[in-house]
């Protein structure tokens, strides 16, 4: 069964006088990987930060339009943003584990939402680390500082941390841009696996990466959604001339 998880309608975002996203509308499929690509500064990051309302906290940012998740408008006045962000996990460009132990990093989310403690929490930590394909590498040193991990491990830890609060959607903002090719390959494989259970949205400016990992691809240019469709058709047979130029490396 195929469902649309997120429905973005006429989304506009301004930073002060700067119109960053212009009337973006599209639907994101459940349990699939959607890649958002485009040259830098095209609004990719702003777009995914609109999905968990992280833009709210930027001074001078204004949003209009609607984003529906499971049919609920997240820009509705009485939505609980904290609950929203629990449901919509996020992984950042640069791995940003807390300066705490590996265990405490993963336990941070469950702790603040008071969903588990003791044995139950141990189980959540283990499950999340397994899901993030990190468990075998760290199971003997859960109480080491997270900074002792390599960059790729740190990024997977951040993914585990996001998984620990049982999200339904995972947003990833160029998760591999700070990593070497080997670590990137691991994360990419992980993203594929995660899409069986979660709706994954990945921002990337790496074309090959978008082609490799995603089921659907959106192409943004200057704040506008130029093209959106399943990855194969976007890459092999783009509708827009702009997309074709971008894919063939004429600019960007």
């Amino acid at each position: 069964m195929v469902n649309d998880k997120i429905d973005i309608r006429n989304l506009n975002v301004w930073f002060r006088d700067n119109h960053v996203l212009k009337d973006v509308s599209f639907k994101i499929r459940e349990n699939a990987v959607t890649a958002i690509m485009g040259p830098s500064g095209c609004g990719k990051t702003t777009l995914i930060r609109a999905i968990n309302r992280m833009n709210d906290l930027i001074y001078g940012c204004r949003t209009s339009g609607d984003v529906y998740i499971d049919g609920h408008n997240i820009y509705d006045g009485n939505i609980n943003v904290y609950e929203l962000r629990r449901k919509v996990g996020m992984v950042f460009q640069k791995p940003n584990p807390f300066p705490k132990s590996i265990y405490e990093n993963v336990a941070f989310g469950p702790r603040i939402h008071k969903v588990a403690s003791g044995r139950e929490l141990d189980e959540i930590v283990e499950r999340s680390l397994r899901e993030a394909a990190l468990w075998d590498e760290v199971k003997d040193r859960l109480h080491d500082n997270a900074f002792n991990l390599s960059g790729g491990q740190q990024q997977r830890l951040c993914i585990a941390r996001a998984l620990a609060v049982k999200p339904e959607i995972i947003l990833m903002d160029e998760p591999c841009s700070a990593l070497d090719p080997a670590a990137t390959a691991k994360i990419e494989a992980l993203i594929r696996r995660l899409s069986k259970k979660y709706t994954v949205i990945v921002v990337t400016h790496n074309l090959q990466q978008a082609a490799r990992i995603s089921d659907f691809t959106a192409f943004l240019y200057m704040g506008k959604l130029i093209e959106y469709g399943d990855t194969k058709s976007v890459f092999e047979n783009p509708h827009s001339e702009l997309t074709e130029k971008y894919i063939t490396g004429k600019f960007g």
Partner: protein
Amino acid sequence: MNLESFLKSLHKLFMRLKSQPVEFILFFCASFSIVILLLMFLFVVKEGSLAFVRLGVQLIFGQRWETNSDLYGGFPLVYGSLMVVSGALVISVPLGICTSIFIAEVLPFQLRDPVKSIIELLASIPSVIYGFIGATFLAPLIASIFELHSGATALTASLILAIMVLPTIVGVSGETISAVPRDYKEAALALGASKWQIIRNVVLPFSKSGMLASVMLGFGRAIGETVAVLMVAGNVAMVPTPPWNYLAPVYPVTAVIAMQMGEAAVGSLEYSALFGLGSILFIITFVVNTIADVIVRRGPVTRGVQL
């Protein structure tokens, strides 16, 4: 750094300076602060040496300070200082730290600069003006509330001093809060942490050492404050009875120095005792500031800190 390599690098520095006149002048200006600090220590301690030799620990622990009988026991003064300073910190530390958190994390963005500017203005008001306000407005108020003859008490001094150190605490602790990496805040935010949870779980653990430093710097400010305290403390060189009576007058160390220097004959025991107290003050503030500085400089360590 061991001494030998330090001297070696110093030698190298001088060789270079000899060939570079511009750099030499600049270096001279930069090292000025060190020279002054050394001179300050030497001269103030030198003038106090007579008192150190003749009075010994009596200068701090002696019970009676009576100029007429040539008795210079500093205990009532030290006690007065500590009383006033601790009173001030009890008020200003919670106020200051809450304020700095509120400004940095809760206050709407547009209001931050104006509020910070007002607090900075509060810091720039000269102490003699605070003393004037304390003596003319606060002291009568205290006198009428507690039905005292005179409103010049340890409490009055504590209150004025609290206002005076507030900006220091707000400023320094605010700086450490704004040094908390944005990455961590965003990570917590994306996990669905509320503002308060971010403050408690990310901001506070990160900035607690900086907050401690702000308290120490506040202490250094408070213990050295002279004019304002002098104008409202009552200036009676006795430990209040009972010792926790904040409605009694006290005579803090700084006030004694300021009031009696004018009358003390150069070279007399009194003169030397005042410098002796001054050197103790110098050493205390030096140590406190150095510790605070080390804490701040070590800063919000991103490695190895356990939140």
